[in-house]
């Protein structure tokens, strides 16, 4: 099914652009806000009380979005000793198994984080500026979904291309 695979790749390309700008925006926000806090504290002896909480959650969001992006570009930290010793066919199989396994783990993590967010929603605690904690914690189910989809896509794409399509 070349059209299906192409459509997936096209939408993931579009998603990549959105991701890049969202991440760039979040990082600039973080830098500007940090500098503002330093100015306020040192020159006006004041500061935004919930500023630190905001910054720490900003880093969490950026990190998990970055990890989701790293999934597409194959930038995750890994040890790949065995595939180096294998034939093309063996490497193909091993990569397929690893992608499938990663997809399953991300699905489990999604499920766990979904339950976590539900519990937090029931608890209903407010983090800052009337934003409840569960909204901040949505980053977990969201990024694990993205990663599960991407690992799943790697599987489908690998099957579609076969052992010949493997990068050497």
């Amino acid at each position, binding site marked *: 099914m070349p059209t299906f695979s192409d459509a997936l790749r096209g939408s993931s390309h579009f998603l990549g652009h959105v991701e890049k700008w969202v991440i760039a925006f979040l990082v600039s926000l973080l830098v500007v806000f940090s*500098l503002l806090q330093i100015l306020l504290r040192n020159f006006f002896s004041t500061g935004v009380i919930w500023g630190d909480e905001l910054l720490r959650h900003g880093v969490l969001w950026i*990190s998990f979005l970055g990890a989701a992006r790293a999934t597409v570009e194959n930038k995750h930290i890994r040890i790949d000793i*065995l595939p180096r010793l294998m034939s093309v066919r063996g490497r193909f199989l091993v990569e397929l198994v690893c992608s499938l396994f990663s997809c399953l783990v991300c699905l489990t993590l999604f499920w766990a984080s979904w339950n976590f967010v539900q519990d937090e929603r029931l608890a209903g605690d407010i983090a800052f500026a009337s934003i409840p904690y569960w909204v901040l914690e949505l980053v977990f189910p969201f990024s694990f979904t993205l990663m599960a989809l991407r690992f799943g896509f790697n599987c489908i794409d690998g099957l579609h291309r076969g052992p010949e399509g493997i990068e050497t």
Partner: protein
Amino acid sequence: MKALLSLLLALLALSGAPLFIVISAAALLCFYLLGVDLSIVIIEMYRLAANPLLIALLFFAFAGYVLAESNAGKRLVGLSTAILGCLPGGLAVVSLLSCAFFTALTGASGITIVALGGLLLPALQSEKYPDNFSLGLLTSSGSLGLLFPPSLPMIIYGVVVGASIPQLFLAGLLPGIFMVLLLSIYSMYKGVRGECRIIAFTFRELFMASQGAVWEILLPVVVFGGIYSGILALSEAAAITVFYVLVVALLINRDVKLRQMPAVVLKTVMMVGGIIIILGAALAFNSFLVDQQIPGRILDWIQTHVESKFVFLLILNVFLLMVGCVLDIYSALVIVAPLIVPIAQGYDINLLHLGVIFLTNLQIGYSTPPIGMNLFIASLRFEESILHLGVASLPFLGILLVALAIITFVPELSLFLVR
């Protein structure tokens, strides 16, 4: 059953499944077998949001990537050549110093070899340094400088074990200088014996070079002046670093364009995200280990077999060297450090000294087979076989091992500045 599952996970890890997946899977499995609700894994991961230091990691990494994108490397090499090029073996010493400085700023993510290797290798060859010497020097220098601030692995160690990061930076300073010094002496010896050419010193050259590099040279002064005078917290100093580097690169030197920024941000975030998600998974896995009192049990077991601190340190070094051979530095730190710290404290080893020992070992692991990252990156960059580079790095590894032994058994070297 449990042994089979562990074996399966280890096999998947060696087959190239992302490490955060393998560690998360281990945590999920352990808690599942205990009958605990799996949201515990996410609750533990969410502790990441309680840590005020991760933002420093992000900011320092970003500043490093911006520097790597600019011509900072070239300028640094220019300045140190103007100062030290006239010594015997001068250019080799220049290579060591600029690699160390650059790695400190960018974290050992292979950027040093990519950014400086292509510049320094032809320079060394044209001054008649032997090929093997030059290749070994540049390969093993790709991780030199991990002990100098604002080293990202050092921040991770501080985050994981809860040590003061400014104090860690101080502790790493003398051991770091010591390693550079030993390697420099060897390089000068090779330079004299090989009758390599030296570069004439002129004040004109020095003036020109320092004009170019003055902003990069001032960066550590501004940032660490801020931290150690007590004006800035670490995360604030990191924010100032980003601001400083951006102003210098975009407005003063203008060697990075604003439209390159989103791509640079993305590169940074992928690296930092990759590290932090492993840290998150390790938080979950370690909470299981602590819950089962496993570090305590390992400590008891070791203490019944190993009595002296000396023998323990020896075993620790061999163990860490082996870890450094198979794991990259960040995963090694987040997985192994929480297990080792309580054991080391049982032997009365200072946390800061332990950090220096950890990083020195893992730095050496970067250049050792089978998966030393320096070897892979250098092999791509210089188009040489990994085996050849491994052999060329041997003398340098030997010197670093001597340095490691001294750093391990002379704690004063690490703790002198802290006290």
